[in-house]
């Protein structure tokens, strides 16, 4: 065990897997000699050389398009998109190609590309260094969407992604890249995809989040506890396919839920959680599920602290479910 932050945990997973499996290739803008603008690929270039750690020209469509070609051929490319805000030039390759290759070829061409990308606000990045586009990708059949919230999860989930045979969008909460520190196995420990983590048990209200919002709901749970409200805190970890059983079991127990994400509300991932839970457990709900989310505006700059969900807003939502 060692103390790591999320960057180090991601880096460790990449080191382990590249050493174990020669088909793993990292590519993207500035990922080579420089080790990535967030340094997540640091040291890989020196250890594995320019053939396996590739600085590409500035074109996200080319990064994903060529990663697809590599994967079709049998490699295991791990492209980095520098910020999730810049993934859209590759949207067509991801949505129309990567996600559909296995299906459209009748199973002939699996396409195991693991796209890593930092996402989310809280670093004063304004419109274009803060976005959380997860729900757009969650809508695309054929993709998996994974978002860790701790260093141990970042490493264990990424290792799992690298060892299965379908495309993944692995979104890293850059706001807590360095702030989230924790014990991480230095060795080769995976964490299964598709399983949520019940971080804290409670019986009054279920709080559901992922990524950087996890610490927000934990803080809200702490504050609630001071008022005698015991919240169950769930870290979703995998958005597609999500762990419906754990969620439903929790909501059946608590009868209340608050879902939290940074992305704008309309058609955000929270809507899916609300709809899915209501379909399966409406009779257990004592109150409407509350959504605490970013607003339906572009991501702001100076007002990002007002934009981002915080513990008080979550707590307010918890109270609404209790007082309903």
């Amino acid at each position: 065990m060692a103390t790591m932050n999320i960057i180090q945990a991601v880096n460790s997973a990449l080191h382990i897997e590249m050493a174990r499996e020669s088909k793993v290739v990292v590519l993207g803008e500035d990922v080579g000699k420089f080790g990535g603008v967030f340094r997540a690929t640091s040291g890989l270039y020196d250890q594995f050389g320019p053939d396996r750690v590739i600085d590409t020209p500035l074109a996200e469509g080319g990064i994903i398009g060529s990663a697809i070609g590599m994967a079709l051929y049998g490699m295991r490319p791990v492209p980095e998109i520098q910020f999730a805000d810049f993934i859209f030039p590759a949207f067509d390759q991801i949505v129309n190609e990567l996600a559909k290759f296995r299906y459209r070829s009748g199973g002939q061409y699996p396409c195991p590309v693991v796209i890593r990308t930092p996402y989310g606000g809280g670093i004063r990045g304004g419109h274009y260094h803060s976005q959380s586009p997860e729900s757009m990708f969650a809508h695309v059949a054929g993709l998996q969407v994974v978002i860790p919230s701790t260093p141990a999860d970042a490493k264990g989930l990424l290792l799992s992604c690298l060892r299965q045979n379908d495309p993944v969008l692995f979104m890293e909460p850059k706001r807590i890249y360095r702030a989230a520190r924790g014990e991480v196995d230095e060795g080769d420990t995976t964490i299964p995809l598709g399983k949520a983590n019940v971080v804290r048990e409670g019986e009054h209200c279920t709080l559901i989040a992922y990524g950087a919002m996890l610490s927000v709901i934990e803080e809200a749970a702490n504050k609630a506890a001071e008022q005698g409200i015991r919240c169950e805190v769930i870290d979703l970890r995998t958005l597609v396919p999500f762990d419906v059983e754990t969620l439903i079991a929790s909501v059946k127990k608590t009868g209340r839920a608050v879902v939290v994400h940074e992305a704008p509300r309309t058609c955000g991932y929270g809507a899916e959680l609300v709809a899915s839970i209501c379909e399966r457990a409406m009779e257990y709900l004592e109150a409407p599920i509350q959504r605490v989310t970013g607003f339906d505006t572009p991501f702001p700059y100076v007002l990002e602290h007002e934009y981002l969900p915080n513990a008080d807003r979550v707590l307010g939502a918890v109270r609404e479910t209790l007082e309903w």
Partner: protein
Amino acid sequence: MVAVQAKDDMAGLRRVLDEEGKVVPGAEVPNIPEEDLVRIFETLLTVRVMDERMMRLQRQGRLGFYMKAIGEEATALAVYALRGDDWVFPSYREHGAWFWRGYSIESYINQLFGNVDDPVKGRQMPVHHSASEINMVSISSPVGTQIPQAVGTAQAMAIEGTDRCALTFFGEGTSSTGEFHVAMNFAGVARAPVIFLLRNNGWAISVPREKQTAAKTFASKAVGYGMPGVRVDGNDVLAVVKATEEAAERARAGDGPTLIEAVTYRVQGHSSSDDPSAYRDPDEPSEWELRDPVNRYRAYLKSRGIWSESLETEITERLNERITKAIEHATTAAMPDRETLFEDVYESMPWHIAEQRDALLSQPPVKSPHGH
């Protein structure tokens, strides 16, 4: 104007055969064994016969959709220059590439009908084939997406240390996409062993070549990527093969990518849904008839003493018979079960898709409005 355009496009083209199928003085003839020369001829005829038969089915309402390659058959034979372990990323109009590399007439027709024997399980529209066993990559409709993918495969081949290469086909209209650019640029920088085969047939649905770019030639675009650009007569099988052989050699030697512009002509509509009389001068196609790639190649075989009336009749009859049988099978074979709708989205089926499958299966089947 149209005619001028055609002539402009013809200027300075690399050729092996002239319009009469005679070897152009000084041209380097690719070294092709006689049996291959015959097989190439058979491949060209396969495409032509297939196109006619399938369009007839389409017009009879028995086939949903079709795309012809008539007049452009020669360009697809670029794949003659490849080895079996090279990979091909086609667009939708290179039928000959499939047949040359061993895709069967039966698979081809089953795909069009999407029956249980369709290699892609009825999931895609007609002419969207896939054959991993012969390294032919699944076709998709969004044009140009295959180009950076071919570059990635080529890069992987180089990383692996093989001397394989990848070839990708696309139309001249598709050179306007961002994908074309990023792929060419990536390939140039990485010196990837890839061949870009731009099939300039003069039209992108209703949009003529001169509205697609202001560049004098498509081959000239190679300059901007630091790679050689070659213009060949796309209706001259031997010129296409020769240029592709040279490009493949460069690729295998580690000298990087090549852009080949093969100038040809879309003699008929863009697809079975299209009627070019709405936008194209009706005289234009006839201008191109003398450049027919099959006629020229036939004349060449004749001059070499390889072609005979009976050879062609034999091939055509054999093809027609086989196609007839394949149609019979394709139109009577079972269609994919509805549970297959939910397979292959992922390697193993996640709970939410299983749930959706079960919900569907609990309902009575829906009759297809299209009959078989």
